[in-house]
C-alpha cells in the first residue's frame, strides 16, 4: 500500500498531464458550450497541478487564481449572454474538419518521427532530469515566489511594465468594444 502511494507521488506529473489531456479532449468534443467551459476548467486545474509538480508553486497557485477564478467565470458569463440564440447550432464541427484532423495528425506524426531518436532513443544526449544543484536557483530560501519576483522585477522589469500597458489597453479596448451603441 505504501509502495503504491509512493508510486503515485512519483508519477504525479504524468497523472495530472493525462487528466489535462482528457479535459482538453472533452472541451473540443462536447456539443454544448457550457460543457466545453467545464472541460476547460478541468484542464486548467490539472495544468496547475502539473505546475505544482514541476516546483513552480507560485505559478500553480496563480494559474488557479487567474484561470479557474477569473477567465472561466468570464467565459461562463459570456456563454450565458450569447448562447440563448434563437437559431439552433446547425453543426458543431466545420465542414473541413476531416482534413484539419488529418493534417494535424500528420504533423504530429512527422514531429514524432523526426524527434523520436533525439528525445527517446539511445542517442538522447543525457538523462534529461533536473540536477539537484541546479534546483537551488528556483528556490531562494525555500520560497519559490521570492525567486520568481526576483526574476520578474530585477531581470525582466521592462517586459513586465510593457505587459501592464498591454493590460490597460486591453481593458479600455474591451470596454469600448462591448458597450452598447448609444449616440
Amino acid at each position, binding site marked *: 500500500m505504501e509502495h503504491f502511494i509512493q508510486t503515485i507521488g512519483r508519477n504525479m506529473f504524468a497523472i495530472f498531464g*493525462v487528466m489535462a489531456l482528457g479535459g482538453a479532449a472533452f472541451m473540443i468534443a462536447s456539443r454544448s458550450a457550457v460543457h466545453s467551459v467545464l472541460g476547460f476548467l478541468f484542464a486548467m486545474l490539472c495544468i496547475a497541478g502539473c505546475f505544482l509538480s514541476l*516546483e513552480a508553486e507560485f505559478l500553480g497557485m*496563480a494559474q488557479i487564481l487567474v*484561470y479557474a477564478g477569473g477567465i472561466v467565470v468570464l*467565459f461562463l458569463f459570456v456563454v450565458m449572454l450569447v448562447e440563448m*440564440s434563437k437559431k439552433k447550432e446547425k453543426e458543431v464541427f*466545420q465542414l473541413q474538419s476531416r482534413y484539419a484532423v488529418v493534417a494535424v495528425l500528420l504533423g504530429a506524426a512527422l514531429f514524432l518521427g523526426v524527434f523520436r531518436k533525439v528525445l527517446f532513443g539511445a542517442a538522447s544526449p543525457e538523462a534529461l*532530469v533536473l540536477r539537484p544543484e541546479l534546483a*537551488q536557483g528556483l528556490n531562494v530560501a525555500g520560497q519559490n515566489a521570492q525567486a520568481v519576483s526576483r526574476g520578474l522585477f530585477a531581470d525582466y522589469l521592462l517586459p513586465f511594465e510593457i505587459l501592464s500597458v498591454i493590460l490597460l489597453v486591453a481593458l479600455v479596448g474591451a470596454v469600448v468594444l462591448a458597450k452598447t451603441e448609444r449616440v
Partner: protein
Amino acid sequence: MVSLNAVLLISFLLFSIGIIGVLIRRNALVILMCVELMLNAANLNFIAFARHSGSVSGQAFALLVMGFAAAEVAVGLALVVALYRKRDTVQVDDINLLKG
C-alpha cells in the same frame, strides 16, 4: 523525478488538441478556449525548461504569458459579445462578409 521528455510530450499533445479545436470548431467561444489551451501548453514548456536549467527566467516569463492571456481573453470575449449584438450569432461560419 519528472523527465523533461514527459513534460514536452504532454505539452505537445495539449498544443495539438488546441490546434485541432481551433480548426474544427464553429463556436467562437470554444475557439478562444482552444487558444488559451495552446498558451498554457507553451507555459508548461517554459516551466519545464526553467526547472531543467535551474534558472528562474522561464517561470517569470510564464507569469508574463499568463497576464497576456488574460488581456487576450478580455478583448476576445468583448469581440464575441459585440459580434453577437450585431449579427446575432457566434458561429464563425456565419461571419462571411468578406467572402467573395
